[in-house]
């Protein structure tokens, strides 16, 4: 009998490193980020960066941190070699930027790496040179305390990757943005940045407002609004303000979690929404740090570590929103508290305003501005990293901040179920359950004036704006369709011919691919489109108007919404094809809509930033009815 050959083999270390490198090191900017984080972890208070050829030729970092002794240096480039965590409990509360022991190992598999380093207690330093597939060399070296790292010829041995890099200008921008991001928040440290022989900036330790002015320019001086907010769980600090040229710029929007730059649409939205009515269709800037017990967050969800998972997204969202609001009010940017304004007109909304804790009664305040999306093309693709877990079930958010995380089941659970105020154990399930909400047991929806849907939740009730909610649903779907190139399109038996103006035609030509992905399937004859297929979401009877109206709105969006084309296109598509206010909905339609809404990545606001959901608590009703 002959044994068949084994197929599965353990990868040689080098190949494993190269694969990991694909995750960690995507472009020169990733190297810069990893190296600076290492310097910060080594308690450096002065860090210099020199790059050549947008980092493709050289990335050079100099720090005055702790340095490494000989054996640490030897180990530092080995995979999973880290001085930063020892046990798996450590992983639960990461205080450092690094924790995987992967960065240097990855870099050395795709570039030539040189490290010169010396600790305070050693009388001389060491130099390590490592090339892919070669044994590293180590020798004594005369240098000052601290570490210098040279990364040369990035990706020279991975031509596919090298080809994939963008122009020098683009790669440089990425590096500069990352370095700037870090320098803005570590204002107590010195940062120096050279592009070749040109100095880009050199900032000395200073206060944060001075750092911001130094790095972002004088203009921001007048309108820096300090943010300083604290509750039992977290501390929010930093600065916000109006962008100088706020009509177009959405630049300078930075959020940090424990000084780690993060990307989180919902949190950005929490800030931007505070600016409602203050900036006409424009973007504020913000440099905001959220300090939170590391145990409350999981940073180990993304290879670039710029996405994090929170135990309680909603609490964070509302805290942040509140922090910004308070700052704006304090500086007189908002003349009066908006909640009170609304109270006068809407009896429902008086309910929350009596309670001291304003976020209690609204899920999202009136908001504005579109959602920032760094990765707008696939809102759901990063769901697992960024699951926006609503936590309506939390009781008394004022007092009970134990990050009780419950699934949607709890949210819509029957009130006769035994209620526990205790923390529910967070299982992995409860995160993913977001995408499989089962509302089927929920018995009732009511439609109010063919405009709002009312439903009972475990702690009170919700009012959902049917149009805004459907817009949100279609918006995210449109982005997915464009990204995935789903091209789902309902073919038409009788092609529809529609004439367009010359400007519209040129826009159509530009957007042709995206429109096709959305499901608009057409031929172009001079000034006429012949539709042979249309998106499934276009309501029967609106086929020819759908695109015309979309184009009109799209043109006006393009003027002042500085987001991406696809974003705008998706938002217009959603707006024009969503259920309208005034449409009567059947029970199944309401149920379907709500199910879809809660599957959205950001269910709380429509693509234009208006809220989709209001929540009211039973206990607030009780207060109003003087039952307590």
């Amino acid at each position, binding site marked *: 009998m002959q044994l068949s050959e084994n197929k599965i083999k353990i990868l040689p270390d080098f190949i494993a490193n190269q694969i990991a490198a694909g995750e960690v090191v995507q472009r020169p900017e990733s190297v810069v980020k990893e190296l600076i984080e290492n310097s910060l972890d080594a308690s450096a208070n002065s860090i210099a960066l020199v790059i050549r050829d947008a980092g493709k030729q050289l990335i050079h970092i100099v720090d005055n941190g702790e340095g490494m002794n000989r054996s640490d240096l030897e180990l530092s480039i080995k995979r999973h070699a880290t001085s930063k965590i020892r046990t798996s409990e450590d992983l639960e509360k990461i205080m450092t930027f690094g924790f995987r022991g992967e960065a240097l190992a990855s870099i050395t598999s795709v570039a030539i790496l040189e490290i010169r380093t010396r600790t305070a207690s050693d009388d001389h330093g060491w130099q390590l040179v490592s090339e892919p597939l070669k044994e590293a060399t180590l020798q004594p070296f005369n240098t000052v305390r601290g570490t210098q790292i040279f990364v040369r010829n990035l990706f020279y041995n991975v031509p596919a990757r090298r080809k994939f890099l963008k122009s020098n200008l683009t790669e440089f921008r990425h590096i500069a943005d990352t370095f700037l991001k870090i320098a803005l928040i570590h204002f107590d440290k010195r940062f120096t940045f050279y592009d070749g022989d040109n100095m880009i900036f050199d900032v000395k330790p200073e206060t944060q407002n001075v750092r911001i002015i130094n790095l972002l320019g004088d203009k921001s001086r007048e309108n820096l609004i300090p943010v300083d907010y604290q509750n039992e769980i977290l501390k929010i600090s930093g600065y916000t303000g109006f962008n100088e040229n706020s009509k177009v710029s959405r630049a300078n929007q930075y959020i940090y979690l424990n000084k780690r730059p993060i990307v989180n649409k919902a949190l950005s939205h929490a800030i931007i929404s505070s600016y409602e009515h203050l900036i006409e269709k424009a973007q504020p800037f913000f440099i905001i740090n959220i300090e939170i017990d590391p145990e409350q967050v999981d940073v180990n969800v993304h290879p670039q570590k710029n996405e994090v998972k929170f135990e309680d997204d909603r609490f964070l969202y509302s805290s942040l929103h509140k922090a910004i609001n308070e700052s704006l009010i304090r500086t007189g940017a908002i003349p009066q508290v908006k909640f009170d304004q609304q109270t006068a007109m809407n009896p429902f909304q008086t309910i929350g305003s009596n309670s001291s804790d304003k976020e209690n009664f609204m899920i999202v305040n009136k908001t504005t501005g579109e959602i920032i999306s760094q990765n707008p093309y696939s809102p*759901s693709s990063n769901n697992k990293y960024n699951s926006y877990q609503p936590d309506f079930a939390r009781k008394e958010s004022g007092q009970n901040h134990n990050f009780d995380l419950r699934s949607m089941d709890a949210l819509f659970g029957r009130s006769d179920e035994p209620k526990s105020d205790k923390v529910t154990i967070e299982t992995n399930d409860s995160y993913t359950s977001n*995408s*499989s909400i089962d509302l089927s047991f929920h018995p009732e929806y009511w439609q109010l004036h063919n405009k709002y849907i009312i439903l009972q939740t475990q702690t009170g009730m919700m009012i959902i704006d049917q149009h805004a909610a459907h817009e949100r649903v279609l918006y995210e*779907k449109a982005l997915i369709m464009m990204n995935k190139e*789903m*091209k*789902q*399109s*309902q*073919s*038409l*038996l*009788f092609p*529809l011919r529609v004439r367009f103006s010359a400007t519209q035609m040129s826009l159509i030509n530009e957007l042709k691919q995206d429109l096709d992905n959305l*499901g608009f*399937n057409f031929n172009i004859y001079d000034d006429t489109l012949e539709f042979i*297929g249309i998106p*499934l979401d276009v309501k*029967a*009877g*609106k*086929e*020819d*108007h759908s695109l015309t109206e979309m184009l009109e709105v799209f043109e006006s969006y393009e003027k002042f919404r500085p987001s991406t084309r696809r974003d705008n296109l998706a938002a217009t598509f959603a707006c024009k094809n969503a259920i309208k206010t005034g449409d009567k909905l059947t029970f199944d339609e309401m149920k*379907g809509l709500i*199910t*879809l809404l809660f*599957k959205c990545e950001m269910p709380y606001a429509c693509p234009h930033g208006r809220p989709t959901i209001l929540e009211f608590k039973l206990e607030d009703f009780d207060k109003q009815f003087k039952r307590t």
Partner: protein
Amino acid sequence: MIFTVSISEFSKLLQKTLPVIPPKSTLPVLEHLHFSVKNGKLQVIATDQEVTIMSVIFVATESEGEILVPGRRLNEIIRALGNEGEIKFEANLDNYEIILKTPSGRYVIKGIDPQEYLDIPELFEEDNKYEFTTFSDNSNPNKAFFAKADLMRIANKTTFAVSTDEYRPAMTGVLFQFRGNRIHSVATDSYRLVKYTINSAQLNFPEQLDVIIPARTVDLLKKLDNDVFMAFLERRGKITHVRFEIGGETLIVSRIINEKFPPYESVLPKDNPIRATVDYGAVLSAIKRAAIMANEKSKQVQFIFDDNQLTITGEDEDSGTSAKEQLACEFPYPRFEIGFNYKYIEDAFSHIEIQGIRDNQAILTFSEPTKPALLIPNGDSDDLVMLIMPVRI
């Protein structure tokens, strides 16, 4: 005005006329039924200005008169009275108060002055603005006689496929194509199309006439209790209205849709080379089950034919739900895959059954996954054809 009538007959009369009352009207008067009692008969009229229905029954009359009665309110009361016994209807023609009396009960509702009702010239022959044919006028070529079953079948097979797009009015109605002793009825919303043909042994139909009748009107013909005379009202040589006389007691007058129906004949595929023979009941229930899984985002079901087997799938990638149904079918071709909006394919299968369908089978035919699919009953006649446009994927 006072009369007595059996509750069951009265109720039947209301069920016939009420569907014409518009659901929400800017003209409150349209929410009323026009009652008039004369010569021992009660005549009830309802209109929404496009369709008008008039129905007559015999009643035991004490005194004659006319009044407008709030239709839905009256119906609620009558329905609550059950189906037995009689009711006495007394209307005070001075203050338009209506009193309904049963042996044990007394209900008062408010009517209005019949003078406020709209003119419906098409209905009343005396007011002769229209030149139109009476039913008995044999010399008029533009009239038709339908056995009730035939007309009911036309109504039941077609209206589901009409468009609700007010911008394309031609598709909001059913096309009646009279061709000597046959009549084709066609409806489409440009996503699907249905064509149903009936043949008549006698020459009962106009020789050559195309007319589009609003779907709402055709819907009223789904339940008939008698054979039907159909005639057309002309004004300056142009047909403006259609008129159905159902037995001796009910009359429906409706405007027609004066538009060009899309050239459907040219888009009906002549010979789709790929043919699958399926059990339509089984397919229908499989579609329904697959649709539950598909209905949220994609609205789409997938038909995969391979090796005498049909697989129907529906999935919702996001929630990870999916459905897969496998059925036997006759399919001697290489693998073929096509996607549909589940609603359209479900509609087609739920209307495919006709008399004489063989072995509960229907035949789906295709040429390409992006070209129209046809669904026909298995049998010798080509009376019923459904066309469904696929979803490109």
